[in-house]
């Protein structure tokens, strides 16, 4: 996820923790959080994924005045691609694209007040054949999240896959 100003905020952490069903008060209650080992509110381990909110060109968020692939009066299916994205852009996307793997390495805890920026590097890509899904095209991206001081906070490696057929796993 290419972002320049991922401002980590306590209210966003609280909402994210609710969405994953995590009732640990370290994500919502500052008074409790100061009594814990980290000494304050921290983000849950998968919170870096919410950087999508700060990615201007993110393809999976409706934007005012632009076509959206989801249904309105009609079921639609408008191609969910950002301008300039390659035809086989694998990560994210609509029907045939799926998230295959996600790996995080934590260099320190993410906390409210951090303003993170990312550098995104393409990783390897490879193909596999599956009876269930046809030809599978995998591709990897490595995203480094750094704070306002340039310190590395999280390294994320994501693998996306596009399948030839619908998979009803």
């Amino acid at each position, binding site marked *: 996820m290419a972002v320049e100003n991922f401002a980590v905020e306590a209210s*966003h952490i609280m*909402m*994210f923790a*609710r*969405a*994953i*069903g*995590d009732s*640990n008060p*370290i994500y919502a209650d500052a008074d409790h959080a100061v009594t*814990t*080992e*980290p000494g304050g509110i*921290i983000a*849950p*381990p*998968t919170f870096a*994924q*919410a950087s*999508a*909110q700060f*990615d201007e060109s*993110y393809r*999976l*968020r*409706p934007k005012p005045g632009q076509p959206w*692939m*989801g*249904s309105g009066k009609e*079921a*639609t*299916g408008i191609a*969910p691609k950002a301008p300039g994205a390659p035809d086989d852009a694998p990560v*994210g*996307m*609509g*029907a045939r694209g*799926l*998230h*295959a*793997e*996600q*790996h*995080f*390495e*934590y260099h320190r*805890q993410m906390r409210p007040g951090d303003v993170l920026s990312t550098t995104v590097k393409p990783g390897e890509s490879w193909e596999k054949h599956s009876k269930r899904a046809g030809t599978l095209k995998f591709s990897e991206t490595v995203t480094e999240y750094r704070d306002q001081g340039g310190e590395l906070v999280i390294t994320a*490696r994501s693998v996306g896959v596009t399948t030839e057929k*619908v*998979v*009803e*796993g």
Partner: protein
Amino acid sequence: MALSAAKLTVGDTYSEVLVEDLKRTQLVQYAGASGDYNPVHTDEKFVTEIAGYPTVFAHGMLTMGMTGVLLTNYVGDGRLTKFGVRFVNQVWPGDTLTGTAEVIEVREEDGLQFLDLKLTTVNQHDTPVLTGNATARIDA
């Protein structure tokens, strides 16, 4: 409370039910919090008529997020150093997920103690939906 290396044995397991009867509303909630509004997760008309799936399905990252709850409950706040998963089957509304962390290794590195875990999250049919690994810093 952080875990203690002295009290851990390879093969130890820790399990939790991550969600019972997963609701479509939780998928909406996760879409809003994460910013991933891919309609395959929330839009029944799109997903059945256009994408060709039987119904909406969970974001892989929601399953990873829920598995992360078990993990931080087990190893303690702020102790994870690595967490990686593979999404091996889809998760559907109505699914009940159970996650398990198994101790693979307890080791010392630069004077610090680390715990390596193998992760498996299964649905109500005991079919794995997520497999993975994690590492946490633990006490001696």
